């Protein structure tokens, strides 16, 4: 049976990440930065390459580089899943999930799910003993490099091969001078955290390649969720290093998407927690009819139900992280359950938070909408709840 609790070390990790984010990335700051990044992209797209008054250059994304330096480099969190011999922490999905809960709670724009989970898993799936792969993992663990898997979102697991093929269909490889070096041509739409990438892991017709970000072009897309930008990656005979052949690449992508889906649930739990805690606090203060609004039973019951949902979401997310960490035989089932449950839980918590804040919940200034947009995007990103339930029909032997 899985361990569904948090260890003392995990509690300490949470406390460290939480206090860092509270200092450096309160929701108002996150929103201001995200909006500035979008404005800068728009200006850049309109031809002006100038920096705005906010100092943002087009293509930089909503990230806070100084914050990422602390998270990735100083705290070593980008390398949680990287083996120790490559400079990583050799930790597990349980710790990575704790980090994601906190990043979700603060809706922090950071390429963590994409760079430190999905890309790392894809690389591990290519074989960490290979020099090209090891070099990339070492760079990620040191917080020097950020890799992003160039798959168009939404992309769910369970059809990893199909997902890879879809991307591959749009990217073609032409062999270069050596077996490993070639050139890639094509485009991949909706690559999440594309602006954060130093290097893209690109599935192509003959396997998985590494392409330096500078060798391709990223066209910004206006995202529903400004805190996790999307980009269209365009490659025109870009120099590439092949990391794995077609078969290994398929398995590596499958593995990456499974871990991504399982751990996205932790982020969704964090989003839901913030929404409930903030709404409860607000409604204890907000008075109408000469009483705190949080004292009306219709409201109390809605909040109590959100709490119940959070209890189940936490258990489901924790089970998925633990199963991934143990390499458990039912990791696929727990990940599907976690996504099917937590995807809806986060959206519902955000929707209820908005409604129960009244007019202020509709304002740009108040951060509920940032959570709503993230929650809605998350519910689509790595497969909708319906997609994961359908997967369970096969995984849990409940055929149509």
């Amino acid at each position: 049976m899985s361990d569904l609790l948090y260890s003392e070390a995990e509690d300490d990790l949470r406390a460290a990440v939480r206090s860092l984010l509270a200092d450096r990335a309160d929701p108002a700051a996150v929103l201001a930065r995200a909006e500035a990044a979008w404005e800068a992209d728009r200006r850049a797209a309109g031809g002006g390459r100038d920096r705005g008054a906010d100092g943002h250059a087009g293509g930089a994304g909503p990230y806070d580089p100084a914050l990422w330096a602390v998270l990735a480099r100083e705290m070593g969190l980008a390398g949680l899943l990287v083996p120790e011999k490559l400079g990583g922490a050799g930790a597990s999905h349980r710790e990575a999930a704790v980090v994601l809960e906190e990043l979700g709670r603060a809706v922090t724009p950071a390429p963590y799910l994409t760079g430190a989970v999905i890309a790392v898993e894809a690389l591990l799936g290519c074989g960490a003993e290979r020099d090209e792969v090891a070099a990339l993992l070492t760079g990620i663990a040191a917080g020097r490099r950020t890799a992003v898997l160039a798959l168009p979102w939404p992309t769910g697991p369970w059809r990893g091969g199909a997902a890879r093929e879809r991307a591959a269909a749009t990217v073609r490889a032409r062999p270069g001078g050596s077996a490993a070096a070639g050139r890639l041509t094509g485009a991949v739409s909706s690559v999440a955290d594309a602006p954060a990438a130093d290097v893209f892991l690109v599935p192509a017709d003959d396997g998985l390649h590494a392409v330096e970000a500078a060798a391709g072009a990223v066209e910004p897309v206006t995202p529903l969720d400004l805190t996790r930008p999307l980009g269209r990656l365009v490659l025109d005979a870009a120099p590439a290093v092949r990391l794995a052949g077609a078969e290994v690449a398929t398995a590596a992508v499958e593995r990456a998407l499974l871990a991504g889906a399982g751990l996205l649930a932790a982020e969704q739990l964090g989003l839901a927690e913030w929404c409930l805690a903030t709404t409860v606090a607000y409604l204890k203060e907000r008075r109408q009819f000469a009483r705190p609004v949080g004292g009306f039973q219709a409201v109390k019951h809605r909040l109590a139900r959100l709490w119940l949902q959070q209890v189940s979401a936490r258990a489901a997310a924790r089970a998925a992280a633990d199963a991934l960490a143990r390499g458990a035989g039912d990791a696929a089932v727990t990940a599907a359950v976690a996504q099917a449950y937590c995807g809806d839980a986060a959206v519902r918590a955000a929707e209820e938070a908005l409604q129960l804040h009244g007019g202020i919940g509709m304002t740009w200034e108040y951060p509920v909408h940032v959570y709503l947009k993230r929650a809605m995007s998350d519910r689509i990103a790595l497969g909708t709840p319906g997609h994961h339930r359908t997967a369970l029909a096969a995984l849990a032997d409940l055929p149509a």
Partner: protein
Amino acid sequence: MAEQTAPQADDGAAVETAEAAELTRRTREFLAAHPPAATERLDFLRARFAAGLAWVHYPEGLGGLGAPRALQAVVDAELEAAGAPALDTGRTGIGLGMAAPTILQHGTPEQRRRFLPPLWTGEEVWCQLFSEPGAGSDLAGLATRAVRDGDAWVVDGQKVWTSGAHHARWAILLARTDPDVPKHRGMTYFVCDMTDPGVDVRPLRQITGEAEFNEVHLAGVRVPDAQRVGAVGDGWRVAQTTLMNERVAIGGSRRLPREGGMIGVVARTWRERPELRTPDLHQRLLALWVEAEAARLAGERPRQQLAAGHPGPEGSAMKLAFASLAQRASALETELLGEEGLTYDDWTARRPETVDFLGRGAGYRYLRAKGNSIEGGTSEILLNIVAERVLGLPAEPRADKDAAWKDLPR
């Protein structure tokens, strides 16, 4: 049930201790002295109680060894492997799950010695005389009076929805001893002898056709003061122990494997009867399966927290979740069965001693599960409790807190 709340042995490091090894040794020694195959069931259970292997977290001399609760699993695993007789928890659930923890916590040494051994072995069955026609959710408003008369109390009133009163030897009873103070302060908690001539048990037939619960009329019932549990006027506080344990017992204190609850019944039917499948039912089954699995895992966390010595508020959520899941799973099953869903196994007005969810048809499950969100505190009341005690939201304004009970509008 109290003796079953202990997690299984692989739940945590807590059990990998010298204490666990010692318990294993004791249990094996006990089994050698009382081989299950050669020992009468009752003799075995009595000896097990005497050996302190009944509920190890109870004190020595009362069926336990003062050991951590989580270690019960070690004992249970040994006993089960040896084919030891199991408790009939269906009949004795109220005793084990509610009366016992209350008597342990608030009873006198004499009461514990007198009541706990036959309660645990199942020789004496217990029922719960709390709810009244005028006091359900608002239990503290109850009107059954207990008046002091020498070294006894004379009890008059009516209780209702009393499960198992027809085969109970004893009852836990909450009665009003002081109508002149606010309602929460004027109650006292007793143990009532169900064989007293003033106790009249009448069956109440329920929607399933059977009469699992009863009306109990109390007329001049004499309860010795020695059967008072806790101080006079302290009944509400004592009853909290009962109610909290009741919710844990109903919420599912036992560890479930995947598909262990009502969802498993539906899933099996689904697999065995492909001809019943429709796309709509498939979607609903998958959605419910996900929810049931999330709730099962959510029920596992409080157990692990308890074993690790850090109980959290999550336990209070489980009764709500399981009630709703049992209702929806059994409804889905009934609908899935189609033509068979139109039928019912048996409307005979039986007087069952246990609730047999799995041994009966889908229609019975559907109907009986309706009670899950009413018995032991309704889901609405539990949502109030979560909102106020877990989330810290303000209570509704109320007029009944400070006025004397006798002055409240009824």
